[in-house]
């Protein structure tokens, strides 16, 4: 199968001995949207810059389409890689207007050039603002121009470095949806860096979780959330409760009594219990607990629970029942749990 981008055992070492990126391998299919997710300073931006060609890998190989752009023998500079890049601060050239920003990567003044600019302006819905200078555009509009500028030369692959983090929350959801639509319409292969797990889960076809320069897991958002390979990944993506347990094959014994497991395990384990896997009720089924706190989000509520021995759990409940601080409730597992060796 042909991949749009392949990275093999990519490593980057800066001045110090520590590796910023260590042995990262990625494969991206045409039209796919891959997210590099991880905490700040974890190496995901460095990975992106290696793919773009702004940094030279210390070792490893990068292939875009059928072209090898970096390996031990040679290194293709960014301007020859046919990539597009959208930066966190958009980096619109302040001395030219929106139209000229979009046309920057296109050749000399030709008909094809102005046609392509018009196409891009229409694609991102910026046609009415084409003559505006960057400082006359709002954050969301700047974002669209930056996207159009990157897409204009028809890059083989689009790289986005935290492109939504400078937008305020209300705008962010809208822009996110728009960007996803535009990328789908243009069938662009894209790699996207973020530290926002919600963004990663909602937008991506695949997520690569990167911690301390290492790739911990590369999988679909569904698999990352439901089958995280380690407790670290589980903690980073979504809310998580952990509970010590004694596993016996497909079941384990813990404070909540006997719970079902996804995979067979034996011995001491830690169970990952997502808040929505807990059923909280008033009808005395399960383990008794007390409501410590409640956060109401309209379409669901989040509960802090204390078990009889003082252990605390976070649960998620629908809004059909009303919980108050101090309520006596009963908790039980509604779904099988994932178990990790201690």
């Amino acid at each position, binding site marked *: 199968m042909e991949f749009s981008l392949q990275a093999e055992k990519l490593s980057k070492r800066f001045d110090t001995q520590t590796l910023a990126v260590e042995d990262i391998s990625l494969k991206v299919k045409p039209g796919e949207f891959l997210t590099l997710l991880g905490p700040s300073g974890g190496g995901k931006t460095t990975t992106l810059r290696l793919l*773009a*060609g*702004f*940094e*030279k890998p210390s070792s490893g190989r990068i292939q875009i389409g059928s072209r090898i752009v970096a390996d031990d023998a040679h290194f293709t*500079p*960014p*301007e*020859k*890689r*046919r*990539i*597009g*890049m959208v*930066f966190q*601060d958009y*980096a619109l*050239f*302040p*001395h030219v207007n929106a139209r000229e920003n979009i046309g*920057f*990567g296109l050749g000399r003044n030709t008909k094809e050039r102005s046609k392509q600019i018009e196409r891009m302006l229409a694609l991102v819905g910026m046609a009415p603002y084409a003559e505006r200078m960057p400082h006359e555009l709002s954050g969301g509009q700047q974002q669209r121009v930056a996207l159009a*500028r*990157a897409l*204009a*030369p028809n*890059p083989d692959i689009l*790289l986005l470095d935290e492109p939504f983090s400078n937008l305020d929350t209300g705008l962010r959801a809208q822009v996110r949806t728009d960007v996803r639509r535009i990328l789908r319409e243009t069938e662009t292969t894209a790699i996207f860096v973020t530290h926002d797990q919600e963004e990663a889960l909602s937008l991506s076809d695949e997520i690569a979780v990167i911690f301390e320069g290492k790739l911990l897991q590369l999988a679909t958002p569904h698999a990352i959330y439901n089958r995280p390979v380690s407790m670290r990944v589980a903690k980073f993506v979504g809310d998580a409760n952990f509970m010590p347990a004694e596993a016996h094959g497909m079941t384990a014994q813990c404070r909540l009594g006997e719970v079902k497991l996804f995979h067979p395990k034996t011995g001491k384990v830690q169970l990952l219990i997502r808040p929505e896997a807990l059923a909280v009720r008033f009808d005395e089924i399960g383990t008794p607990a007390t409501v410590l706190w409640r956060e109401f989000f309209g379409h669901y509520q989040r509960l802090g629970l204390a078990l009889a021995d003082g252990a605390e759990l976070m649960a998620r409940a629908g809004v059909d029942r009303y919980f108050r601080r101090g309520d006596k409730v009963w908790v039980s597992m509604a779904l099988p749990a994932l178990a990790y060796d201690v």
Partner: protein
Amino acid sequence: MHLPDIIRPRQKLNGALRQARPHWRFGNRQLAQAASLAVVAVVMIPVAYLVLGAFHAGAEGIDYLLRARTLRIVGNSLALMLTVTACASFIALPFAWLTARSDLPWRRVFLALGLAAMVIPSYLTAVTFSEAFGPKGMLQSLLEPIGVGRLPSIKGFFGAALTLSFVTFPYIVLPARAALLRCDRNLEEAGQSLGLSRWAVFRQIILPQLRPALSTGMLMTALYCLSDFGAVAVMRFNAFTRAIFLQTESYRLDKASMLALVLIVLTIALLIVQSRLQHGGRHYRVGSGAARNLERLPLGKWKLPAVAFCATVIGIGVLTPLLVLFSWLSGHRLTNPIQVPLTELLGNTVGVSAVSALVVTAAALPLALLAMHAASRSDRWLVQLAYLGNALPGIVIALALVIFATSNLLSWYQTLPLLIVGYAIHYLPFSIGATESAFAQTNPRFEEVARSLGISAWAALARITLPLARAGILAGLALVFLNVMKELPTTLLLRPIGFRTFATRIWSAYDEAFLSSIALPGLLLVLASLIALAILLRQDEGIA
């Protein structure tokens, strides 16, 4: 001297911005490196030639150095340096505090005028001081009604020290004021809450925070004294620069270079101390948030003495030179038998300054590029070496070029190209600094975006970085232009015979006591200096 260096220490540019620049392909970097190397070679070779030649003199040279007259020159320079640094500090500290932290009326005006004292060429200040405060001068006519007869001449140590104190005190005001504005107000309030008096707060809390800035300013002043030619030459005080000039003028180049060698050693020693201090000083830096809303201390009954103090400083340092120049402009004095048309002077001065500014700006470009990308230690060294030209006194560079040209390039000696090279070496750092900081202020992402759009590094430079940095580069160009206009020792030693500029005209007119010929060139140079100051202040809006 380079004003932005005081206000904006070079370390500031070494931040994340610089590291985040994309790496260049080898071809690009090598081109910039080769060009930089050529520029640095032009800077270094004459100086190296001078130093090696001086070492070559061997025992004879040491013999000359140990002569009583030579030792007296060393003593003179050191005494002048120490006296001026002390006097300038005494003027600068209250001046800085009053303009920064008190409710002194017209403090902005005082500050701006105070800084003007720094940019008026020192020979002009010296010429006007010796006229105003000497026999039959302005001061004497003011004092006559109270029975003071004839004032003694101020030529010599006193005149040189007086001139240099008033020319250099802004070099201490600037860093001291910046430090006073940066002081952490919370610390002072903590002191007051512990029961310290205002004076105790100043001594125990504010002054220690000022110490690094004060030492930086004092070192700048000391360096200025060592390298200044104008004031000591006009005041006929035998410090290094004047002695070197006299020896060079009478073609005793070996003696001149021995003296220059000692001066270089002293200068480098001071520079080393300065760089040490700057590194140590960074511990004192206070977070930026607290700085803005500093409370101004009401002066109360001290208001009048404070205004009188500042007015006196400005009156001596800035208004005196202006008044004297204007009085010469309108006065009926002996007419100079050697009439030089103003158009010739103007044409020469502007022409040679403009060409030099263009040459310097072009030469600075590869070095600024290299500094911006600063990929390797050797690149950084190359840039540092280019800064040498401004660290060394102008007279030393001029002497080095005289020696180099007379022994290797005789056909270049006393030609305009060599004069321009001399200016270029001395003012190259102005242009590198301006260009480098203009580059540093452009978003490094711009270049990356361009390259991700398929545009080569050079095209990105031409289409994005240069257009965006244009204002900064032009400001650097203007600064070089305006400073070359004022330059005296380089011009005196390297100019073609019969080539006159404003600076040399003032020099020879003063030598021959045709003071009215000084007025117009002098006022035009003051005007040029004020424009230069305005550019500097606009580059760094935070200080005024």
